[in-house]
């Protein structure tokens, strides 16, 4: 699977025996940030009568703002910069990785299809939850593991289950994005190999198998664009839910 390989573009330097190199993964992260920055710059003109671009950017900010207001309440306002950057970064990364730039010889790299990247994003969200929780509630934060209305004879079991489900959050958060993107790209690769191999086998195979596969591939591409948006939304949504837990303790 050539498209998932991390390649070194610039050898970089060594720190304690570890090579710190500039890879294609890092290149596409920088590219995502540049595209996102240009996108935001074009829309932050603060015109009284917004143009189309400004409307688009305002739609995105308004969408995240209403999501935070709905899930966290008025305390959610201060997390808007983090959740918004997270959402837009993942969304742009997913969509940039889907671009058919291979036609012009540039192979896009979807860095969200690597667990190292999504794992770090998940740990970032999780540590915000921990820091906010302990900062705001102190040791009272542990009452998160005993929900209201727990019967006394279940007090030995519920905290264990709640603790496990709490600790699993960063894994499930990172894993979901990484696997969804990897699975989508593998699916497209399998379908494209159907098209290429069947066409090479002869005209009858090409018409019988290649063309239906190609039509299916177009449909799956549309589905993958939807998945790219949904996964970014789900990541931001779950982050805001976890922050809500830290803010309000159930």
């Amino acid at each position, binding site marked *: 699977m050539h498209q998932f390989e991390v390649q070194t573009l610039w050898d970089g330097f060594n720190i304690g025996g570890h090579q710190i190199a500039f890879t294609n993964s890092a290149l596409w992260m920088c590219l995502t940030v540049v595209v996102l920055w240009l996108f935001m710059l074009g829309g932050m003109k603060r015109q009284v009568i917004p143009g189309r671009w400004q409307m688009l950017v305002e739609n995105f900010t308004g969408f995240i703002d209403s*999501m935070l207001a709905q899930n966290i309440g008025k305390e959610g306002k201060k997390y808007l910069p983090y959740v918004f950057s997270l959402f837009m970064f993942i969304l742009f990364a997913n969509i940039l990785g889907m671009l058919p730039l291979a036609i012009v010889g540039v192979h896009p790299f979807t860095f969200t299809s690597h667990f190292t990247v999504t794992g770090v994003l998940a740990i970032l969200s999780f540590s915000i939850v921990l820091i906010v929780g302990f900062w705001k509630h102190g040791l009272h934060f542990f009452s998160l593991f005993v929900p209201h209305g727990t019967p006394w004879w279940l007090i030995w079991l519920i905290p264990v289950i709640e603790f496990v489900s709490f600790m699993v959050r960063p894994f499930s958060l990172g894993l979901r994005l990484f*696997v969804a993107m990897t*699975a989508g790209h593998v699916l497209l690769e399998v379908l494209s190999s159907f098209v290429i191999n069947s066409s090479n086998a002869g005209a009858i195979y090409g018409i019988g198998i290649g063309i239906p596969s190609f039509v299916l591939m177009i449909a799956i591409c549309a589905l993958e664009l939807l998945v790219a948006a949904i996964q970014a939304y789900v990541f931001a949504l*779950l982050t805001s*839910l976890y922050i809500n837990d830290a803010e309000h303790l159930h």
Partner: protein
Amino acid sequence: MDAEAAKLIGAGLAAIGAGMAAIGVGTVFGQFLEGALRNPGAADGQQGRLFIGFAAAELLGLLAFVVAMILIFVA
């Protein structure tokens, strides 16, 4: 049976999990639509919960994919 063959059979069996998750995701969206058509006014407010349910159901299907990938490439 050859160990390599057993791995591939296991990876194929893991695909059942993806189908099961498809049932789950279908149930989530189907039930939401059913409720939304009965009371369209309340539907927009519940979209967050819809996607939480979707994310939970989908994660288990994705885990099946992870199991298949581990069996083929890692184990």
